[in-house]
C-alpha cells in the first residue's frame, strides 16, 4: 500500500479548447476513502483515468501522478492491472463473458493464475459479495444492480490496493445504488482498500467519505473532510458555491439555519428537534385514519389523455401477472409521475400504453382511442410518443442538427418548415450551442434533451418518459425539469416513470405509487408524500413531524429560516 500523489497535473485532450485538468494537486493516503464530486464535464473521469495506466487518455500531460515513488504511467503492466481496480458507469458494457463465474475469473485468467488458485479467489469473492446464489447464472439474466456488483467483485478478485470508481452507481435505481455504495464502504473499512469514487448522488456517500474533493473546470475547488468541504462551499465568497446545490439535501435545508451544516439525516433531525423544543406539535394521529379515497378516482373520459382500465397482463401463460387490474389515468395537460420499486410493473404499464404488449384483460385508451384497435400510424403520429431510457436507442445522424431534422423528416411538410421547426427545437431544448456536435459526444444530460427534442418533433400531445433523470447531475436535472415544465405549460401531457422521488416531488402535478401490478396510492405531490412514511423526500422525512406538507428542500429551508 502506497500513497497516491498527484502533483501539478495538467491534461489537455487533443483538439480541445481548454485543459481538462488544470494543475491538480492531490494526496491520497493508503486506506483512505476519497469522494470526488463536481458537475458533468468538470474533469472527474479524466482525473480518475490518469491514475490507471491502462486507461490513460491520449493527450498532453504535464506534472505527475505517483504511486509511492513510481509514476503511475511507468508501473509494470502486471502490477498496474492487479493493484489498481477500475469500475465504470455502465453495468452492461463492462461485462465481458457470458457467465457470472467466468466474469469473476476473467482478471485472474489474464494474470495467468492456475485454475486451483483462481477457484479459491473466486470462491472467496463470491462469498464476500453474496454472489453464490447466482454464481452459475448467465450474466444477461441479472438485474442492473447485480451486474454492477459483479463488475466490482470481478475487480476485487484481483485483490487491488486502490479502487477507482467512475460514477459507478449512476445507472442504478436508488436501492441498488445504496447497496452498492455500502459495499464499497465495507470494502474500504474491512479490507483497507484505498477508494477514489466519483459520484453525483451524494446523499448517502458524502458522510461516509474521509475526504471530499470538489472539482470545477479541471481544478480542485475545495478539498477536506466532508464537514470542512460543506462549510467551504456554503461560505464561499460571494454567496454559496454553485456546487452547494449538489450537496445532500439535509445540508441545503440547514444552509442558513445552522453554523455548521449537518451531514446526515439523523444529525439534521436531532438539530431540528433541538430547535423545535417547546413548539406545538400537531396532534398525533391516535384515531383511526380517515377513510382514504380509493386510488384511481377517475375524471370524465374526455379529460383523460391516457386511461388504463382494469388491465391485466402476464408475459407468459400461467406466469404471475405483472399487471393486476391496473387502473390509471393521465389527465390532459398534467404531469403525472409514476413511482415505485423495481419489477412492480411500471415499465410494463408503459409498454401497454404504447401497444408493445397487449393486455389480456381490460382496455387501454390513448386520447380516447382503444390501442387494441388502433394502428401504429394513428397512435404515434401526433398523439403519443415515448422517450426510451437510453437515448442512444434513437440516434442515427452525425450531428445534433441533423438528428433533430431526422425526427421530422418523415412528416408531410414543406422543407423550410421542417428546418424551421428543427431549429426552434434546438432552442427549446437549450442545445443550440451543441448543434454541430456528434450526438455520441454529448454528455448524458445533453443526450437526454436531444432525444426528447427529436421525439417531440413528431408533434405528440402525450409524452411518456422512462427514467429521464437516470445518471444526470443535479444541474442537468434542474435544466431538464425546467424544460419539461415549460413544455407542459404549452399544452403537453407528461407521464414520467421515475425512481427519483425528489425530482417528482418538485415538478409533477400528480404522483402515483405502483406496487404489485397496480396503483396503490395517488395524489398531488403534497398530499401524496405527506401520506407516505418511508417512500418520500428527504425534506419531508426531516420536517414531517412538525410540518407534513413540506416536501421540497427549498420549502424546508424557508420554513427553518422563518423559525429563526
Amino acid at each position, binding site marked *: 500500500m502506497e500513497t497516491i500523489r498527484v502533483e501539478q497535473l495538467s491534461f489537455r485532450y487533443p483538439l480541445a479548447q481548454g485543459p481538462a485538468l488544470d494543475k491538480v494537486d492531490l494526496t491520497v493516503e493508503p486506506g483512505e476513502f476519497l469522494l470526488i464530486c463536481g458537475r458533468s464535464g468538470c474533469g472527474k473521469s479524466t482525473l480518475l483515468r490518469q491514475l490507471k495506466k*491502462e486507461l490513460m487518455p491520449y493527450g498532453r500531460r504535464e506534472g505527475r501522478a505517483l504511486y509511492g515513488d513510481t509514476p503511475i504511467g511507468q508501473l509494470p503492466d*502486471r502490477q498496474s492491472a492487479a493493484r489498481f481496480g477500475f469500475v465504470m458507469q455502465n453495468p452492461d*458494457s463492462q*461485462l465481458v463473458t457470458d457467465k457470472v463465474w467466468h466474469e469473476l475469473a476473467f*482478471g485472474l485468467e*489474464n494474470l495467468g493464475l492456475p485454475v486451483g488458485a483462481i477457484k479459491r479467489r473466486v470462491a472467496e469473492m463470491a462469498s464476500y459479495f453474496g454472489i453464490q446464489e447466482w454464481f452459475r447464472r448467465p450474466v444477461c439474466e441479472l438485474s442492473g444492480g447485480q451486474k454492477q456488483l459483479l463488475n466490482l467483485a470481478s475487480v476485487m478478485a484481483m485483490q487491488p490496493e486502490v479502487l477507482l470508481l467512475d460514477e459507478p452507481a449512476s445507472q442504478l435505481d436508488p436501492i441498488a445504488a445504496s447497496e452498492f455504495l455500502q459495499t464499497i464502504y465495507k470494502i474500504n473499512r474491512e479490507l483497507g482498500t484505498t477508494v477514489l469514487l466519483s459520484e453525483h448522488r451524494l446523499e448517502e456517500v458524502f458522510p461516509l467519505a474521509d475526504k471530499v474533493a470538489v472539482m470545477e473546470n479541471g481544478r480542485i475547488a475545495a478539498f477536506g473532510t466532508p464537514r470542512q468541504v460543506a462549510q467551504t462551499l456554503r461560505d464561499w465568497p460571494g454567496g454559496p458555491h454553485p456546487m452547494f446545490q449538489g450537496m445532500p439535501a439535509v445540508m441545503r435545508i440547514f444552509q442558513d439555519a445552522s453554523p455548521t451544516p449537518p451531514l446526515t439525516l439523523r444529525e439534521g433531525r436531532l438539530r431540528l428537534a433541538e430547535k423545535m423544543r417547546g413548539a406545538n406539535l400537531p396532534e398525533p394521529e391516535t384515531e383511526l385514519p380517515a377513510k382514504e379515497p380509493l386510488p384511481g378516482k377517475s375524471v370524465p373520459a374526455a379529460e383523460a389523455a391516457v386511461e388504463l382500465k382494469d388491465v391485466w397482463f402476464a408475459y407468459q401463460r400461467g406466469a404471475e401477472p405483472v399487471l393486476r387490474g391496473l387502473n390509471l389515468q393521465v389527465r390532459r395537460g398534467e404531469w403525472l409521475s409514476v413511482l415505485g420499486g423495481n419489477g412492480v410493473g411500471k415499465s410494463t404499464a408503459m409498454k401497454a400504453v404504447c401497444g408493445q404488449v397487449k393486455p389480456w384483460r381490460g382496455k387501454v385508451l390513448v386520447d380516447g382511442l382503444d390501442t387494441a384497435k388502433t394502428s401504429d400510424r394513428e397512435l404515434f403520429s401526433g398523439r403519443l410518443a415515448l422517450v426510451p431510457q437510453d437515448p442512444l436507442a434513437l440516434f442515427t445522424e452525425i450531428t445534433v442538427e441533423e438528428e433533430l431534422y431526422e425526427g421530422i423528416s418523415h412528416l408531410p411538410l414543406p422543407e423550410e418548415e421542417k428546418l424551421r421547426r428543427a431549429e426552434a427545437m434546438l432552442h427549446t431544448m437549450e442545445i443550440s450551442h451543441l448543434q454541430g456536435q456528434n450526438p455520441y459526444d454529448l454528455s448524458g444530460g445533453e443526450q437526454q434533451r436531444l432525444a426528447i427534442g427529436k421525439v417531440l418533433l413528431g408533434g405528440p400531445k402525450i409524452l411518456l418518459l422512462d427514467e429521464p433523470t437516470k445518471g444526470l447531475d443535479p444541474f442537468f436535472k434542474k435544466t431538464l425539469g425546467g424544460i419539461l415544465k415549460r413544455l407542459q405549460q404549452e399544452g403537453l401531457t407528461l407521464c414520467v416513470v421515475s425512481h427519483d422521488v425528489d425530482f417528482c416531488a418538485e415538478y409533477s402535478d400528480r404522483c402515483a405509487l405502483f406496487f404489485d401490478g397496480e396503483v396503490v396510492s395517488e395524489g398531488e405531490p403534497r398530499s401524496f408524500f405527506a401520506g407516505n412514511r418511508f417512500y418520500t423526500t428527504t425534506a419531508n422525512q426531516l420536517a414531517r413531524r412538525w410540518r407534513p406538507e413540506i416536501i421540497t428542500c427549498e420549502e424546508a429551508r424557508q420554513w427553518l429560516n422563518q423559525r429563526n
Partner: protein
Amino acid sequence: MKQLWEQGLGEKGEFAACHPLVNALFFFAAAGITMFSMSPAFLALSRAAALGYQLVLGGRRALAGYGWSSAVIVAVMCLVNGFFSHDGQTVLFYINSNRITVEGFLYGAWSGVMLAAVVAWFGCFGRVMTGNRIIYLFGRLAPVCGLVVSMIFRYIPLLRRRFEVIHAGQRCMGKTATGPVGKARQRVKEGSILVAWSLESSIESSDSMAARGYGLKGRTSFHLFRLSRRDVTLLAVMGALCLAMGVGIGLGCTDMYYYPVPVWPDWGRQAPWLICFGVFLALPFGIDLQGELKWKRYELNS
C-alpha cells in the same frame, strides 16, 4: 424411466454430466469410426446406437423426426449416387448411354446411412455440449478461443435486447414504415443504430478488459469442471477401445467393396471389431441407465 421414454433426459443425463473431455472423445470417436467404415454391419450399428441415444436425449416424440430425416438422407444419397456413379457391373438400364447400376444405388444407400449416423452423433454432441462445455474445450485448444466463444455467448442476448429497445423506440416515434421497401429501409436504419450503439459501448468493454489486465502474457483459462476418477476410468476405457478400433480400421476389418460387384465381407473376421464398436457405443447408454436406476432407488428410499 417413464420420463426417459416420454421426454428424454436432455442435458440432465448422467453421461452429459461427465467431464467435457469424456463427451468430446466419445462423440468424435463415434463419428470418426463411422466415417472410416463402409461395412453395412458397422454403419447400421452406428446409426442404431445414435438413434438410441437420441431417444435417451429427446424421448420418443423426438424419434419420429430423426427417423424421417435419416430416411430422407438415405434416399437422396441413394438416388444421387445411383444416377451419377456408373462404376457397377449389374446394369439396370441406360440413360444417354450411361449405365445405371445396382451397385451405384447400393453404395449410395450405405453412404447415406453413414452420413445419417454422423449427423446424428453431431446432433447429440450439440445437445450435450452446453455453452460452458464448448468454452472449456476451446479454452483447452487456446485460452483466447475459449474467451472469444464466451464473449459471443455474452453478446448475442445483449444485442438482441438492444435491438428490441431500438425497434420499440423507433416505433414509438411514429416511424412506422409501410410497404416492403419502407420496412426494409426502416430495418436497415435500426440495424445501423444497433451497430453505432454497440461500437460505442464496446469502447467501454475494451477499457474494462484492459483495466483487468487483458493482453498480459500467459493468460490461463478457468473452468469449473473436475476430472473425477470415473472420468479418468472412462477416458482410459474409451481410449483402449478406440485404439483397438484403429487397428481394425488399419486392417480393413470395417470396410467393404461395392464396385465393380459387392464383395460381402468375411463376417467372422469382422465380428470381434463389431463387438468392440458395440461396447464403445453402448457406454453412454450404460452410464445414463445406471444414473436413472440410482435416482429411482434414491427416490424409493427417501
